[in-house]
């Protein structure tokens, strides 16, 4: 997968108390991925964020453009992410039928 432009993402400090287990997991990831603890924590946070954004997008709670803004990446990256995780995006059969009916009534 391509880099999603997070190197340029603006960051800000946020005070947060974390469970000891999660910190231990971050340390494991840090050793595994050869990154520092903060980077490992951010990676874990992003993994959860990506999953949640896809869920919202699939349910129609946020749009593609909004999803790309929230994850600070392109719309392409969102589609790539959805395909990697086997998530179907886009309108439903009902929405297709409604658009078709509207189109047909406009032609009459």
């Amino acid at each position, binding site marked *: 997968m*391509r*880099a*999603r*432009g997070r190197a340029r993402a603006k960051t800000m400090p946020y005070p947060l108390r974390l469970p000891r287990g999660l910190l231990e997991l971050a340390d494991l990831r840090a050793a595994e991925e050869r990154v520092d603890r903060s980077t490992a924590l951010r990676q874990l946070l992003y993994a959860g964020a990506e999953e949640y954004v896809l869920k919202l*997008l*699939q*349910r*129609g*709670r*946020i*749009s*593609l*453009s*909004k*999803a*790309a*803004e929230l994850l600070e*990446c*392109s*719309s*392409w*990256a969102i*589609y790539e992410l959805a*395909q990697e995780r086997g998530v*179907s*995006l*886009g*309108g*439903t*059969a009902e*929405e*297709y*039928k*409604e*658009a*078709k009916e*509207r*189109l047909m009534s*406009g032609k009459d």
Partner: protein
Amino acid sequence: MDSDGLIKLAKSGILAQVIREWHCLVPQAVYEETVERGKQEAYPDAEEIERLVQGHVKPLRENEHAEAILAQARALGRGEQEALHLFFNERADAIITDDRAFLAVLKRAGLPALPPALALVELARSGGIQLAEAESALEMMKGLIRQEVYQLARRDLEELRKTKLKGAEMDEGERQS
């Protein structure tokens, strides 16, 4: 059209034909998030879109009708917001999108949407593309749309094929008589 429509039509290889047959416009924000950002992230289709939409990109000009609708719609990003402004400013016929959140906003406002799968069916119906071209485009779009929508569009194309075949047979019959 919004980013969703643009990406699906580009991936199905039908964007050039859609732009050629219909007067399609792309909001500046959609261009930025698909072409500019896509190129930064090295998505090859972004360059192809850049070439195809040249002369069809419109900068944001705010519209009060769009503003009123958007005041109630916080789930949309800049791309869909600008698509709505553009729709009103250009008095467009429809917005090409398959984005569920955007479709819901358009439905509530009573505005017409054209999902990309339906767009290619309509393009084939109007003779803008060959039926075989539409069928092949739908196959390429398959992984980007819901399976149920793919099945509906496929059924529509099959019906269109039957109708065209019937029409051709009737023409032949008339010629022979």
